[in-house]
């Protein structure tokens, strides 16, 4: 496997968010700022790597009929670990991500990678697949969060850059802004992917 190529792919053409439209709920919910986006992305990456690793290890043991429950139990274990870990270390971040930490369990990216990749490939490959996809996910969340933060709160990574009297477009940090920004971001990313693919 060509890792460099795969890396590029998971960032653009096959990006979990913009390419495959997976994991939309956390993508939309936690990206009112870039920081939250990164936090969520990294948490997901951790779970993704862990679950891919374990599922790949167990791929020959797990019977087909309880495949999904078994996968989900594995994923849920890692999610709970992240949940508790974040609560113990980064309490503030945990508070903003809130409900969406346990919901990593049902992020389709994770089950999707487990089904499509980890249950069929070797441990190392699965681990790297998890890492790349997680980073791709994080990347998208970061971009989305940055755009929304700039437009909606006039800040980059929490640092306000616009003068006091200026207005920001509040809508972008609210729910509708999440949908609309992601919609336009998909168009942009598709354009970029096409340009990259065209080479």
């Amino acid at each position, binding site marked *: 496997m060509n890792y460099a190529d795969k890396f590029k792919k998971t960032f653009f053409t096959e990006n979990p968010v913009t390419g495959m439209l997976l994991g939309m709920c956390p993508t939309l919910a936690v990206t*009112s700022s870039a920081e939250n986006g990164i936090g969520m992305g990294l948490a997901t990456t951790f779970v993704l790597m862990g679950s891919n690793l374990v599922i790949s290890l*167990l791929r020959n*043991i*797990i*019977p*087909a*009929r*309880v495949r999904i*429950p*078994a996968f989900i*139990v*594995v994923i*849920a*274990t890692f999610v*709970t*670990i992240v949940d*508790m*870990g974040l*609560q*113990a*270390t980064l*309490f503030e971040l945990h508070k903003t991500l809130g409900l969406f930490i346990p919901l990593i369990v049902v992020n389709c990216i994770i089950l999707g990678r487990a089904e499509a990749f980890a249950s069929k490939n070797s441990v190392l490959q699965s681990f790297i697949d998890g890492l790349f996809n997680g980073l791709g996910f994080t990347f998208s969340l970061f971009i989305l969060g940055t755009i929304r933060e700039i437009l*909606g*709160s006039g800040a980059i990574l929490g640092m306000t850059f616009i003068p006091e009297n200026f207005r*920001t477009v*509040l809508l972008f*940090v*609210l729910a509708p802004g999440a949908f609309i920004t992601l919609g336009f971001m998909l168009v942009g990313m598709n354009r970029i992917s096409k340009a990259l693919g065209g080479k």
Partner: protein
Amino acid sequence: MGKQESGLKVILVLVLIAMFSAILLAYVNQVTREPIAANKKAETQKAIKVVLAGLKDISYPENPTDIQIDNSGAGYFEAKYDNGKTAGYAVIVKGPGGFTNDFDMMVGLDSSGKIIDTYVLDHKETPGLGDGMQKEPFKNQFRGRQLNDTEWKVKKDKGDIDAITAATITSRAFTKGVWRALQVYKTLREDQK
């Protein structure tokens, strides 16, 4: 996938995975339980520190005491000086009827019933508008006020409080919350008498 595994194996594998997961989680839980509890406590501590700023050498209970006022629940920490005298109260109340939902806030009162400071614990108000209640010009006007020296309404409702621009509803809810906290204080005082 082809073959059908025997039922026993199916169950066994799932049960084993589950058990292993649970054991792992239990272990992690044991490890993180302490820090998490500490974090939670620290948060409340932080809030108390903000709303009771200026009171020195105080102690208060670990958990808030529940109290019932006008059909809604509230909680308070009674802060005491080393000598056991009441230094003040940190009251947790709901700001009822915010723009999107109720929100939790903490109001610090000194022993004479003067407001020391306010702190919003958890809210879903519009960022940039309603969350102005956490910011200075608005917060400042509450400091030092008491139950009786103020008409606890926003100016639009012929009260004394300046509302946040374009967020009257939030301001009103906030004001109501503060007023509730003062009611808690009043009740406590009456009890002590």
